[in-house]
């Protein structure tokens, strides 16, 4: 279900994604261009997350070379969804092009952003011990 018409085939690099679990954390690794053409797939993935369990998601953007406003909107939706389930969504590995967008829109204030995947996973274990202590 790709709602964007034909121009996709001209695209040199499209988004690739892989998903895996690590210690109760779901890691979504994206690479390529994360834009309006690709955002629906990611949105769909977020929308099928089980709302009853706390969702801990790391979106690894290390390989993402470009991000647009539609993609940002999808990440925000994912963030809200995770937080509603008492979980969270962390970002990691922002390239400078991507980082600028987050800075321009001040979304770096809304997301917890880590330098790399390990730091993000570590962030969750801290987070987990914090919430477990409450």
């Amino acid at each position, binding site marked *: 279900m790709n709602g964007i018409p034909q121009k996709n085939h001209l695209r040199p690099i499209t988004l690739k994604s892989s998903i895996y679990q690590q210690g109760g954390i779901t890691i979504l690794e994206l690479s390529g261009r994360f834009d309006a053409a690709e955002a629906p797939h990611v949105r769909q993935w977020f929308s099928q997350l089980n709302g009853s369990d706390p969702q801990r998601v790391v979106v690894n953007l290390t390989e993402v070379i470009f991000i*647009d406003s539609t993609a940002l909107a999808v990440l925000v939706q994912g*963030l809200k969804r995770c937080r509603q389930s008492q979980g969270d969504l962390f970002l990691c590995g922002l390239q400078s092009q991507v980082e600028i967008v987050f800075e*321009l*829109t*001040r*979304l770096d204030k809304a997301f917890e952003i880590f330098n790399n995947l390990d730091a993000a996973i570590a962030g969750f274990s801290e987070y987990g011990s914090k919430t477990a202590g409450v």
Partner: protein
Amino acid sequence: MSRNGHASLTAHQTLICYSRLRLCGIIAHLVLSCRQLARYQRLKWGGVTLAAGKILEKQSKLSAVLTAKQDRFMGLAQAWLATGATTFSVWENNELLASWTNASPTNGSPALASLENPIHLREKVLGKLRVEGVADNQSQIRLAAEAYFVAELIKLEEELEAMTAQLVDTQDQLLALYNLTQTPRNSLNLDGVLQSLIDELVRLTKATGAFVTLNTSNQPILVEQYPRSLFDQLFLQQLFQRIQSTSREILLHSEDTLLDVVPEDISFDVLFARTIPIRNRTTVTVGLLLQQTPSTLSPYLKLARALGEYSAAQLENILLYQETVEQAKLKAELELASRIQLQLLPQRPPQVEGLEIAARCIPALDVGGDFFDFIEHDNHLFTFVVGDVSGKGMSAALLMAMTRTVLRSEAKFLPTPTPGMILGRSNTHLQDDFNDVGMFATVFVGHFDPIKQELMYTNAGHSPVIYCPAGGRAQLLKADDPPMGILPTGLSQNRKLSLNPGDVLVVATDGFNEARNLTDEIFGYQRLLQLVEQMASKSASEIAAVLFDDVDRFGAGCPQDDDQTIVVIKHTEY
């Protein structure tokens, strides 16, 4: 039964049916048989109404020919009477149908001599011819030849009748086909079409029972039957399973236990059902109860298949038509929404002392979430707002209208509004609504004080905002807060920017920097910054026009993906 009814007619009634003719000296007694009269149900004859209901019987072949070819029989009779016979008569089952008698009987004495010859047709005796007054061998041969001739005549009549019946059948089928093709033009609701499909299917295939169903995922969602409550949902589901297991078609004989549910008063030999896929998971199933022996079944099955395919095509057309209508309606509504949305935006920028203001919004095809607004205050202060609600379509448009209204009322009614207060309070108001739908809005609020020549602003995630001081480099102003609807903060940061003569501020939406060309390249911030810098010495409206033009030229051939909104504020030189 009716034969008895006929036989029991009184002499009086039989006499009424006589027509007495005197022609060329011959008296003809034609018993216009009561059977024939029966064709006219209730016929007035000499003031007596014949209750024909009880003697409704198909006119016998002999009397039919006698009626139709009266003059031919008359000719035979005349020839007999002219050659010495006293009476020529036609009989059926020892019952007189017609007789022609010489008007001047010889000597008044009854002629005893008589000849008879049966009329044979396919080894059955249909009646007889009788002549009185002659008895010679030659006459017998002649009478036999005439009986043969009458039989041939009956045979021809029969054939003609059969051909006429076929012709009528064919005509009827053609008419039914015509009706079938015309149906969708007349009624474009599914129920109506299903109903007329059933009617015509039954007519064309002479089915004793029929159904047409529209199914999604093999579940009937719309059922039309003849007679109305022929089968229940359970039966249809079981039948569909059977059809699925075979392929697309099934032929069940009346002994099949599945068909035990068919009401007893419906006689049939087979149930034929065929499922035709039309689109996605939608199928049409046509079922017919046919009363046909194996030898006559085949053409009806072919017809049923063809009609099934045709019905499915018709229904598909209707569905497509309905979808098109729905889409057209939706499109009209969206266009209306889009117009209303544009009208929410200020039609022309206000006159503010010391400022040149240009503003414009070009919505993408969908209704979108871009907006701008101007609010003038009594003390010459001036507030302007540019925003972009994430997403597209009606949801973005609705949130945009809400956001605009809340921002506007905060700007208007706060005693001493600052951009930070306006935005912070609005964010608090709208937080729940944004959260519920998982959306957000980037908003820039600017507040110009002409006395201080100062712009106070707050930027909630909005980009691009370009500031170009007179003669200087254009630069992007970063946001200080995330967009509205993300964090439940109540207060946003105020920033100050001294706006000197010649300084330009361009607040656009991402429809500019994310505009694409055919090779999927985006316009980007750099081009925007360069353009603003190049154009900074021009008027606000010229800057706006050039930005629109350049982005438009850049994306030539590509559809505009997103709304493009721009507000250009330029401090005019004194």
